[in-house]
């Protein structure tokens, strides 16, 4: 299929570019379910998915109440199955817990696109769009290593997100592993809840716990606003801050280079939108542009790049406004 040449490599980077795949095809009804939009990134996920669906005249999107109760999310998917939608884009609260119902949907002939948190059965989804949580931690850790090169006694702190989520574990593991490569380790770790307020609270306590810090990695830029406020309150500035997820706010700060944020690791909030696209293409039997492959691939793992002053302009357009 003839694609217009497009150099953007990031998913979502093709926004506004007219390609053949965008030509209206048969009508596709897509159900979308995600966890509760209790923080900026998650809210951005749903918003991006909606916006993506708006672009296609042949897509009808059904978005249901976000929930952190797997029982409710299961019943939402069951409702989609009853409704005989063509595809379901599912960002599960808990990937393993949503596997049985996703299998059921697949068996009913519905194209399931799994987003962000992976199912534990390869048969549960036609295709999977994954953010790379472990890779995110690795990217952040590698960046911190680079910046602190040679300071073996450097104090590194970590402000994690909701600690009970597997994705948080993956991020932390990646971070610790990468730090280990250069002989550093996480000296202080606190967890927040992805919200501004919890970030402020966690950071305020963290700053007391560690009298001297060289670098902080904060998993989530939305909670990062609170982290920033706490740092400002404490009047400290001996360290630099690496963000996570990649909100527009933080990118603007990085660009201006006037704050503690020196970098952020992107965790694309466009995954939901990608899911919608893949669902539409898969149902319509189209393939992914830029690939020679005639089918939509099984799995798309998104890259978790580090955004710094130098490359921030590339990422700002797709960053989410938290």
């Amino acid at each position, binding site marked *: 299929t003839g694609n217009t040449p497009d150099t953007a490599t990031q998913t979502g980077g093709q926004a506004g570019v007219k390609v053949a795949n965008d030509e209206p095809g048969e009508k596709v009804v897509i159900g979308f379910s995600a966890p509760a939009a209790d923080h900026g990134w998650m809210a951005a996920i749903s918003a991006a998915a909606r916006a993506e669906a708006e672009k296609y005249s042949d897509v009808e999107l059904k978005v249901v109440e976000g929930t952190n*109760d797997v029982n409710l999310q299961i*019943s939402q998917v*069951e409702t989609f199955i009853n409704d005989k939608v063509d595809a379901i884009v599912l960002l599960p609260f808990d990937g*393993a817990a949503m596997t049985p119902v996703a299998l059921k949907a697949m068996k009913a002939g519905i194209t399931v696109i799994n987003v962000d948190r992976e199912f534990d059965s390869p048969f549960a989804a036609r295709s999977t769009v994954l953010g790379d949580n472990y890779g995110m931690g690795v990217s952040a850790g590698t960046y911190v290593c680079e910046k602190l090169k040679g300071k073996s006694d450097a104090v590194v702190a970590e402000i994690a997100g909701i600690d009970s989520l597997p994705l948080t574990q993956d991020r932390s593991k990646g971070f610790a592993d990468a730090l280990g490569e250069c002989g550093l380790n996480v000296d202080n770790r606190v967890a927040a809840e992805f919200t501004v307020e919890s970030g402020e609270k966690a950071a305020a306590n963290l700053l007391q716990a560690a009298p001297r810090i060289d670098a902080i990695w904060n998993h989530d830029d939305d909670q990062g606003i609170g982290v920033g406020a706490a740092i400002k309150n404490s009047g400290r500035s001996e360290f630099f801050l690496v963000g996570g997820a990649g909100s527009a706010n933080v990118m603007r700060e990085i660009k201006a280079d006037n704050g503690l944020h020196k970098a952020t690791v992107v965790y694309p909030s466009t995954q939901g939108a990608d899911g919608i696209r893949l669902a539409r293409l898969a149902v319509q039997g189209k393939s992914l542009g830029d690939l020679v492959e005639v089918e939509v691939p099984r799995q798309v793992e998104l890259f978790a790049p580090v955004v710094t002053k130098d490359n921030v302009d590339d990422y700002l357009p797709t960053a989410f406004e938290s």
Partner: protein
Amino acid sequence: MSENTATAAVAPTSGPPDGGRARRAVTGILGSAAGRNTGLVVALVLLCLVGVITAGDRFADVDNLLTILRLASVIGVVSVGMTFVITGGGIDLSVGAIVALSSVWATTLATQSVANDAHWSALVFTALAVGAGCGVINGGLIAYGRIVAFIATLAMLAAARGLAEILSNRKTQIVNVPGFTAFFDASVLGVPVLVIIFVVVAIVGWVVLNRTTFGRRTFAVGGNPEAARLAGIDVRRHTVLLYTLLGVCCGIAAVMLIARTTTGSSTHGVLYELDAIAAVVIGGTLLSGGRGTIAGTVFGVLIFTTLSNVFTLNNLSISAQAVAKGAIIVVAVLLQQRLARRGDT
């Protein structure tokens, strides 16, 4: 709360005083049961009407109704247990955490290997035992430690969820016990086993609350604990039993959730406490104790689940859903009150 109680004192609840006795007794019971729940029935019917009007066949479809029931059954079982505790003058904030802990404990590798070696019911027993254990601790702290129920169960909420995280190492544990899955995935005459469990729990709950000495004592303990004590009821022991019963219900709910998700996880059951208490209270059970109805609770659960189903079918914006939900709760309660009052006179 208190205002409500005060006014309730003036609006009594019995049938006509001068009719024949037998007739009076019968109409009294039926009348008050129907009268108490008419509002809820009407609210549920209205909700269904909205469902049919807005979503047509998609709502009235058998599959959809089964989806509603399946969704209702997990929280329903917890709510039935909660009805007992609240009727007995208590409250339990730890139900969600107990569900999580039970689900994790019942799906550890150790339990699963026992279940695979011996019988899958080992998994079920583990869940029930963990639930019961947590209930005993709750009840013991409240009855013998004399810690206010709110605080004791809040402590349990923190502790049980923390323990669940430690046990599972915050990983979702996948169940691999074929017998278990086969049993709970089945349907009998088209009705899923989960729904049957809920129906059985509700019926047993109703019978126990309304037809046994245990139930009668629950009303007494909740209505006036001092009077109950002086009437010779062992109020403390009874309190422990009530929380244990609720713990067992949480264990059952955990089993159901394991079956539904094929996993045990420390994130299961988040905010179940609020959902269950809301269903119980909207059903007409007094938060201050002494009055409780299982039928009302079941209606409460169905109203909440139907509501979210209708929302799902209608593709409503998520924030608008929340606002609508708030408004609908208020309307349902007002309806319930007005109609219940009329049914009384």
